[in-house]
């Protein structure tokens, strides 16, 4: 009678120990601080299209809000998990087309509009690409938060790997770098599929000024 009870008891102990281990590795991550949470909740109000739910963080945002942990050795497993999770959200183009019109792509890359409380719900959201990247070498007004994309395909080639990688990276950069500064374009529906194809063309079409 006693012996039959020991086995499940041991298993239970094992679970507790495993749970404790997971817990202790998560302890390194920033603790939930009720004071901070209250400050954030009390400090904002909804305005226009920017609702209060915008400060409700998803798992990726929570993880990346603690850069010390996110960049640490202990954070590595979680980093991989976040990247995998984001990779799984990426859809390949429904019509099989990766490359659209680079001229439209350039317009999308130029526009940094959309999603602020002064924008309307129907304001066309821009890619905001030049805010952070050099792209067409003729455009001198560009930011440097992201790497230069000038000569993108000329330097990397036009292989299927390059095309798929670029597609994935534009759709959700956090699939490759959990805490990349780049917005998750497809995940938050900032651009639609057609627009992403057009931005792809800007980077990959041999006719695009980017590759001239």
């Amino acid at each position: 009678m006693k012996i039959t009870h020991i086995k499940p008891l041991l298993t239970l102990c094992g679970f507790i120990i495993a749970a404790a281990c997971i817990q202790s590795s998560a302890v390194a991550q920033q603790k939930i601080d009720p004071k901070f949470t209250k400050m954030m909740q009390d400090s904002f109000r909804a305005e226009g299209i920017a609702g209060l739910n915008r400060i409700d963080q998803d798992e990726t945002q929570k993880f990346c809000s603690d850069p010390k942990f996110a960049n640490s050795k202990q954070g590595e497993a979680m980093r991989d998990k976040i990247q995998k999770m984001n990779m799984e959200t990426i859809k390949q183009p429904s019509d099989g087309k990766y490359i659209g019109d680079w001229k439209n792509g350039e317009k999308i890359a130029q526009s940094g509009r959309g999603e602020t409380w002064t924008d309307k719900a129907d304001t066309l959201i821009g890619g905001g690409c030049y805010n952070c990247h050099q792209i067409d070498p003729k455009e001198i007004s560009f930011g440097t938060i992201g790497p230069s994309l000038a000569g993108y395909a000329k330097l990397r080639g036009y292989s299927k790997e390059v095309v798929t990688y670029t597609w994935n990276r534009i759709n959700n950069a956090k699939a490759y770098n959990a805490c990349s500064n780049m917005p998750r374009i497809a995940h938050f529906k900032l651009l639609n599929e057609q627009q992403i194809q057009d931005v792809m063309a800007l980077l990959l079409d041999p006719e695009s000024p980017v590759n001239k």
Partner: protein
Amino acid sequence: MQRKLTLGLATGIVATLLTMTSSVFAQKSATDDIAKYREMIADGNPSELYEAAGEDLWKKPAGPKNATLEKCNLGLGPGVVKGAAAQLPRYFKDTNKVQDLESRLMTCMQILQGRDPQEMIDAQFQQGPKKDMEAIVAYIVTQSKGEKIKVSTAHPKEKEMYDLGKRAFYFEGGPMDFSCASCHGENGKRIRLQDLPNITEQKGAALAWGYWPAYRVSSGQFWTMQQRLNDCFRQQRFPFPIYGSDVTIALSMYMAKNANGGTVETPGLKR
């Protein structure tokens, strides 16, 4: 009348500058032009207009109690204005809170003049009671020009506010996953042509904190730090930060403390 004339003149100078820079595209040239413009008007920053108006408002009886703000304690004793902005935000015993310049001024308006802070909180920037607040801020910060930034975290509430500010600085949210750190966490970065100070380090923090509030050449307006932070949150695609709320004070504390040792250059002159 004279104010209108001077404003017109300032607008003229700004228009000239804008024409001057519109043909210049490279970041360096644009920065140089702002520097040149700063030199040109070194003795005539348009903020002076706001400052003069602010001094009048400081000394003019107002509110249900028909009192002036002259007994307002900004941390250095009642009525002491010189150097006050250089040591804010700080802990105030009477409110048991850490306050920045604008939230403190709201307390003074409430206590001394009997005014309802909610009117200030709800007003739009550059309008109504906020417009007056902006002028008063211009007056106060000018009285610290050239002083060293010296913000304390000796009081536990000040230390706590700094730590909350640091967390807020790294807090990611919204549909673009931005935090303050997305733009202000590394050296030598820029958005489009705009240089971005790295606020996590003393040098960058001094550049950010030390130069705001500032006169903005592009909009022809004087912006307080509360408005600067408000627009940062807008660009982050966050919801609207309530005027004088703790997140704005915490971030100010984080910036100001990091900036310690830098010089108060306010009112600054910004593109």
